[in-house]
């Protein structure tokens, strides 16, 4: 399905002009900053792309779609784990709003297996604690949670007031760990830390690596033992990926953190290979596991049938065993006919339509694959909380300027474990693989796979979103619940790629089929015929506007 870059340019609209329109309404200083975050893509011969300013603080008063550090730590990374009690230390709002809202799915191993995901635990701080300190209440809350549920582990998440009033969640965690004899650990993920939820991902990675990974050294069964990192099992994505892995003969030691369990995390350092889906939220754990235990990591993508096949082949190439390579090919051959059948049918109705994706730290990239498979063109995309390497590729890492906001997030110093460090491949084997084009610890970023002339916009806000829609009139816009209804007000279907609009799975082969069908249903829904969009200046039509 090769398509030349030039085909994708929306020829009648000049991207420079669009950019100017987007920033014209801002005060000069704001306009200057935004103009660095709005980039027109251009890939040169060396596959280099222009710089995008990313992971910088949002300007006050500009309505951002970003969340906070707490949301990234508790909501995103730790939230999907079923058997750790996640206790929010703070006033009630933070816990309430992160209560079962992300639609992560989980499948306990049996009726005895803990599943705390339907619960929301909070210390519900009151004024008294703000004034006199909340550590006492926190300890009581931990004790009560323990008495009621007897969990294997309890994690504490600090909200904005906690750090300010001087509550030390870590010392409370240590004390309660000693008292209860279960693992208790804290996260200083106060909402004001960092510039977005990205800071919270990093804090979560550090905590889970420090307090959980490596606690259980038993090497369990399985010939090809992998971890899947940055897959949160929204809408059952991880279940579909697990199904394919099982078919291929791959054993998942732990997923971080969709459908995960505390026990899997403890054991995850025994895997042969780490696979990264969402680079932004989880690359830290992969890096630390490599340094400490010698597990290499590779970037994969299971969003898109072609991408899934490509990622499976990459895994087979890593192991380089004919048995696995053959099995992977058999699975692809078995799965693809159904995918192709639906793809062809949907493509006939969707070909040439325009998509925009503004979501996450990986999804805006990964989902372009699925649109491409049904002939749709992505004309603008951006992340909510990513860093430059997610846009431009890891090659820019040495050049990223670390500002004060990121410096405040602790960078752990990791050394090889004296006993347990064991490189999974020898330097020779690695070099052999690399000669064939195989890439370890690499992510080329979103932009290298986007067409020339497309718009790349970091931390897009409500105002710019509306402007883009007005100018490009896309056929579908992908973002989250906050954007959904504003976009639909203008008569554009809007697909949520955070919660999937309660649909999914969209990963793997069956997921691709689901997605094709879903997009077909949305862009070709009859309802849009009844919406007179702002640019459809046709008075005769307006007069006949009616539901029939």
């Amino acid at each position, binding site marked *: 399905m090769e398509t030349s870059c030039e085909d994708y340019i929306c020829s009648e609209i000049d991207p420079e002009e669009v950019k100017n329109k987007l920033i014209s309404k801002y005060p000069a200083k704001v306009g200057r900053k935004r103009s660095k975050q709005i980039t027109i893509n251009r890939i040169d011969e060396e596959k280099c792309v222009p710089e995008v300013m990313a992971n910088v603080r949002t300007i006050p008063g500009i309505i951002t779609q970003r969340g906070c550090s707490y949301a990234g730590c508790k909501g995103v990374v730790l939230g999907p784990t079923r058997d750790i009690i996640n206790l929010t230390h703070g006033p009630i709002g933070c816990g309430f709003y992160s209560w079962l809202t992300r639609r992560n799915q989980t499948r306990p191993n049996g009726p005895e297996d803990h599943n705390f995901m339907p619960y929301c635990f909070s210390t519900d701080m009151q004024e008294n604690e703000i004034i006199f300190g909340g550590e006492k209440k926190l300890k009581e809350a931990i004790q009560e949670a323990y008495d009621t549920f007897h969990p294997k582990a309890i994690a504490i998440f600090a909200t904005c007031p906690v750090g300010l009033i001087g509550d030390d969640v870590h010392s409370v965690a240590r004390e309660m760990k000693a008292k209860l004899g279960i693992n208790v650990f804290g996260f200083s993920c106060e909402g004001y830390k960092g510039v977005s939820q990205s800071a919270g991902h990093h804090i979560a990675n550090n905590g889970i690596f420090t307090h959980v990974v490596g606690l259980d050294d038993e090497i369990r069964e399985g010939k090809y033992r992998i971890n899947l990192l940055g897959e949160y099992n929204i809408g059952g994505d991880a279940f579909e990926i697990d199904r394919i892995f099982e078919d291929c003969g791959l054993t998942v030691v732990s997923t971080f953190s969709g459908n995960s369990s505390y026990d899997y995390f403890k054991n995850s350092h025994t895997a042969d290979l780490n696979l990264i889906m969402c680079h932004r939220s989880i690359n830290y754990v992969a890096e630390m596991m490599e340094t400490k235990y010698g597990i290499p990591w590779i970037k994969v993508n299971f969003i898109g049938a072609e991408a899934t096949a490509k990622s499976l082949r990459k895994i087979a190439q890593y192991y380089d065993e004919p048995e696995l390579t053959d099995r992977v090919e058999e699975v692809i051959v078995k799965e693809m006919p159904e995918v192709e059948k639906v793809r062809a049918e949907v493509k006939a109705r969707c070909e040439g339509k325009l998509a925009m994706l503004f979501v996450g730290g990986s999804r805006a990239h990964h989902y372009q694959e699925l649109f491409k498979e049904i002939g749709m063109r992505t004309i603008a995309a951006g992340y909510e909380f990513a860093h430059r390497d997610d846009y431009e590729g890891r090659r820019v890492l040495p050049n990223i300027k670390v500002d004060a906001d990121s410096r405040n997030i602790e960078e752990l110093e990791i050394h090889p474990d004296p006993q347990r460090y064991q490189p999974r491949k020898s330097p020779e084997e690695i070099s052999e693989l690399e000669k064939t084009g195989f890439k370890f610890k690499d992510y080329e970023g979103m932009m290298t796979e986007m067409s020339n002339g497309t718009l790349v916009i970091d931390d897009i806000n409500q105002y710019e979103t509306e402007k883009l829609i007005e100018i490009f009139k896309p056929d579908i816009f992908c973002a989250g*619940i906050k954007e959904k209804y504003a976009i639909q007000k*203008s008569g554009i279907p809007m697909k949520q790629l955070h919660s999937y609009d309660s649909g999914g799975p969209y990963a793997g082969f069956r997921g691709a089929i689901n997605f094709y069908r879903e997009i077909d249903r949305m862009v070709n829904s009859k309802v849009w015929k009844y919406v007179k969009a702002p640019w459809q200046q046709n008075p005769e039509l307006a007069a006949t506007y009616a539901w029939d």
Partner: protein
Amino acid sequence: MSNSVLKKKENYTPTTNACKLCTPLGASLVFKGISNAVPLLHGSQGCSTYIRRYVISHFKEPVDIASTNFSEETAIFGGGVNLNLALDNLRKQYNPEMIGIATTCLSETIGDDVAMFLKSYREQRIDQRLPEIIHVSTPSYRGTHMDGFHGAVQAVVEGLSNKDFDARSGHQLNIFPSMVSPADIRHLKDILKAFGISYAMLPDYSDRLDGALWSEYQTIQKGGTDISEIKNMKKARASVEFGKILEGGRSSGGKYLKDTFGVPCYSLGLPIGVRETDAFFKVLENLTGISTPDRFVSQRERLIDSFVDGHKYVSGIRAVVYGEEDLVVGMVSLLREIGIIPVLCASGGKSGLMEKTIETIVPEYQPLGISIRENVDFMDIEKQAADFSPDIFIGNSKGYTLSRRIGKPLVRIGFPVHDRIGGSRIRHLGYEGAQELFDRIVNTLIEKGQEKSEIGYTYI
């Protein structure tokens, strides 16, 4: 089981599955109900993002709530600079008539003096035309979303009442409907119109949170109470304020207008069910001197007729009712009229007034075995609900897990309702609201019975 308000023991702890939301959410809703107003939360951006996503998931409408985007430095050095920047940027992008600022836990904990920041903001821009800027203190560690809601109503009334002299005479009525659905607000307006009453309602988010598609992009959705109307509230002949708990408890917009400008304030229960709606209509009759228009008389007659038709399904049925205190009180009133026993009345609020207030509606609550509990979460509700063998749950979507576990159906009312479409169109108020609630409750019970039947009767 004791029937007294069972308070959690002193210093007792974690809230598991809360039955309340945070204060700035309530304040944001009020600001959405004012024409050309933009809410601005002073604190971390996460608060406005979380609240937006929550409010949006219920109303299924765009909801812009700005933030002053605190960083670590702001948390240390104070939020004055961020507040100025946010106000400048909001004015430039949205050109609002009003900016409603609600503080968050963060700015409150560090002790930001927002009033002082605003004073100097205005002084520095003496030559510019500024929008109204109203500020309400809403730390989430003090009260629930209802306190944020009532606090914001009061702050807006106070902040705007003392402004410029308006030559117009006052309306007949100020109406403070409390946190009700857009459909409720529309119904109230319909009633007032039928009486020919001129009124100002605060807030009125019936359009902004349940609006039409756009023919052109709207930076601020149309609708909401005009600011000039709010400024004029002090000259009204009377105010009506819904909420018996509000009446007995905290300060409010209606009380402020009464104490400061001598505007008489009728504090009524939320008009849910016959009795409370009758009381509301009585006030309207007194104010206007005209009798209730025929169509409402007919609505009432049809409602009572349906009560008679349906009594066999509901009489003696046991319900668990939860949510905001005033909503629970209102529902108890309706449920008793139709013969349902609200065996457990629960709220995450803690006014200390729930039991006393429910006693005025159901004096025989003790012999009926009704338990009234404030300051509870869903864990407490679940523990206790099992003892009461309820037939039905009535409340917001957050009780679904519990109703599912106990195996009894849930009738969704109030906020949030994010597992059904039409949260903004649920009607609770007036005779028609009671009619809808009654029909839904009865049909839910019938459906449950029908599902259980092995034969599957189609004639019930």
